[in-house]
């Protein structure tokens, strides 16, 4: 019995060291994860059943109310989106002027939460997207309100996400108001982040929004992370104590967004958007031509002849569009037609 214990203990110790120090066990682990994921599905089953049942029996008036609310929300969002599309284009062009390769648009994938780490002292969740969906190690994860964390383990159909508030997690942030940089570390409390090494005299105050700075090369820049809750100036301490509340609903969100950063260069993106623009223009021309054709029933050949040169003309202004701002940077005149290209870029 003692011998067997010794063998098993040594085996476990070796496994632990290998797992902690080397990468060689990762594939085996992810395969094992594939076998054991159904446990999470099963364990979560009652919750999903309950959700399904409540959805089934929601009263009609509640649904109507919710519908009304969502419609109003959609309207508000659309209004903001209209503005955003123009601003995004403008931003892209201004950045191109600055030769900066920063990205504005990223591709996202929606994942669903299927499990929470049973250990109450770690903040990790399991989501239903994995290696087969293109999820990769270190991928940023968001919810509708802000950054949630990053992927730390990828299995074929699921992956594990480390949340911002885990005690082992830190993220580089910026104060949105003035660009002050800092590191926000998790505290093990789902409602609390702490900023490390902020000078006592730094310009930071209650209510400041902290956004990701992108300096760690892991999270995309500009996503909201937390809101400063209190700043304590203690003359006995070398640094100010800054506490913040994460904007993401870390322990409430059921749906998460996985962000894929766009790897195209600014030139490529400019060409792509120009091409998309060209296509849209051509379609518009064609539609106009068809309308003309329907109206002018007698002279059929004439309208057909006109759209052809117009279509050929269309591409010439489009490719120059990205270059145009070089002379007039803040000119928004070229933007109104652009929002249509948004769909093509994603």
């Amino acid at each position: 019995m003692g011998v067997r214990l010794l063998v098993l203990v040594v085996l476990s110790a070796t496994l632990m060291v290998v797992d902690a120090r080397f990468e060689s066990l990762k594939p085996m682990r992810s395969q094992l994860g594939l076998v054991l994921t159904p446990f999470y599905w099963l364990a979560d089953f009652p919750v999903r059943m309950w959700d399904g049942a409540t959805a089934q029996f929601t009263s009609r008036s509640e649904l109507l109310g919710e519908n009304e609310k969502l419609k109003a929300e959609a309207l508000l969002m659309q209004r903001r989106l209209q503005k955003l599309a123009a601003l995004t284009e403008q931003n892209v062009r201004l950045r191109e002027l600055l030769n900066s390769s920063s990205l504005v648009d990223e591709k996202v994938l929606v994942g669903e939460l299927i499990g929470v780490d049973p250990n109450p002292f770690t903040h990790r969740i399991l989501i239903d997207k994995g290696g087969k969906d293109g999820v990769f190690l270190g991928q940023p994860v968001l919810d509708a309100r802000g950054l949630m964390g990053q992927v730390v383990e990828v299995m074929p159909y699921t992956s594990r996400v480390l949340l911002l508030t885990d005690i082992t997690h830190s993220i580089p942030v910026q104060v949105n108001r003035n660009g002050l940089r800092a590191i926000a570390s998790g505290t093990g409390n789902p409602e609390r982040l702490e900023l490390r090494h902020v000078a006592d005299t730094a310009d930071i105050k209650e209510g400041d929004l902290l956004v990701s700075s992108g300096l760690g090369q892991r999270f995309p820049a500009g996503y909201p992370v937390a809101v400063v809750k209190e700043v304590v100036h203690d003359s006995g301490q070398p640094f100010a104590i800054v506490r913040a509340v994460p904007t993401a609903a870390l322990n409430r969100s059921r749906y998460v967004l996985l962000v894929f950063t766009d790897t195209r260069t600014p030139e490529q993106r400019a060409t792509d958007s120009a091409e998309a623009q060209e296509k849209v223009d051509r379609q518009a021309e064609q539609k106009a031509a068809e309308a003309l054709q329907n109206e002018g029933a007698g002279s059929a050949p004439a309208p057909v002849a006109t759209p052809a040169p117009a279509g050929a003309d269309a591409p010439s202004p489009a490719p120059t569009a990205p270059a145009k701002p070089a002379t007039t940077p803040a000119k928004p005149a070229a933007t109104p037609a652009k929002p249509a290209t948004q769909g093509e870029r994603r």
Partner: protein
Amino acid sequence: MIGLRPRNGWVIWFSLGLALLLSVAPLPDFMEVGRPLWPALILTYWVLALPHRVGMTTAWLLGLGVDVLYGTLLGQNALILTLVTFLVLNLHQRLRMFPMWQQSLVLLVVFGLAQLVQLWLNALTGNRPPTLAFVLPALVSALLWPWVSVALRGVHQRLNVN
């Protein structure tokens, strides 16, 4: 025991699978801290009841399953469950004679030790819980032991597992 062929072994595996399931079942936040050590509890019953069938190798394999499920270092829970099984195997002849409350008391010590090792290994990988709450699961498990034991004995005798 001698001369009996293994019978209804699936019951053991099924109950261990159930233990894995229970160990990841969602719980309200305030109960999460005191989540019972289901794999250790159910394993302990089978080790006490059928020491010739369920031993340290079974415990080790179950522990590997827990590790994958929890995403901890491979081998961490395997090591802990092996240690628990070793202690219970060493004590099993005495433990079987004890009344229920005394069994619970001994198991409290065993599970407490297991949680201590868990804490130590977690500290090695850099996340040490800041409170003493890590002993709570051991206490809850020890309190649950009589019920688990009675329930499993019922299943054991009804299905004549050997």
